[in-house]
């Protein structure tokens, strides 16, 4: 499986670390809303299809990425920096 890092270009999946579901919304740290915290910690969509995920290119540029991966085919549909700001031309 290849993931195209927006900075480094296509790299083997072995260089990347999965950082979890990209759909979660973290409540404000001071929030007392237990349902919101419960949903943040435990609720997952677990779709059979396209899935928003956070990955880190830990064996390369170490950038955190937003990746859309198809959980049935492992096709990587899109990759982008998780954080904006660094406007870098992709090499791919």
């Amino acid at each position, binding site marked *: 499986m290849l993931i195209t890092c927006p900075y*480094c270009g296509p790299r083997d999946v072995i260089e990347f670390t999965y950082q979890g579901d990209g759909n979660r919304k973290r409540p404000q740290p001071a929030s007392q809303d237990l349902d919101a915290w419960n949903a943040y910690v435990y609720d997952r969509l677990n779709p059979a299809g396209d899935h928003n995920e956070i990955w880190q290119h830990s*064996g390369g540029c170490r*950038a955190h990425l937003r990746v859309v991966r198809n959980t049935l085919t492992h096709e990587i549909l899109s990759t982008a920096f998780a954080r904006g700001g660094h406007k870098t031309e992709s090499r791919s």
Partner: protein
Amino acid sequence: MAEHQLPERQSPLEPEYHPGSHGNFEHGVDVILSETRPGSILQLAAWPGEEKRLIEAIRKVTGLGLPDGAGGGVSNGVRAAFGFAPGKFTVVDEAEGLAAAFAGAITPAIGTLTDLSHGRTPIRIAGPKAEWVMAKFFAIDFALPAFPLGAGRSTNHHDIFAQIQRSGADQFDIYVFRSFARSFWKALCHASEEVGYEVH
């Protein structure tokens, strides 16, 4: 006042560094391995949005004009610089004291400077089979159009993180952690045996 004397830096490769020809060299030496031992290795990182100012600071201090684009780099034989991550650059100088030269140029508003001169060991591989040997180590494209002269790449070999700069058409400089350098060097020597290698 007595002149400031810097202690000579000891190479981590020393016990395994054996100058001469090795491996299958009867039909010629196809790669040359060496340790470049630069005086300064710096890591510069820009805050988001400050990349252009950092690149300008690198140009002012070193005279190196970094090309645009991911992994862009330049090397003039004495000094070298390349991007290895978004907004992050490795800058190398044969002479010591580059961190002091940058101290006034990289303001806290632009980014940070980390002196890695004692933390990284640069290993140079050169020769007609350099691409071949590198391709056995790293799963990236080493062909000249994909990896242009001066450009930098971040990757790893069995969890040994490596920054690689192409410093010549058939020459690469590999920056590895000092603590892993001897192990990496031994592996590189073994990988070079089949093509015949010389240690300078």
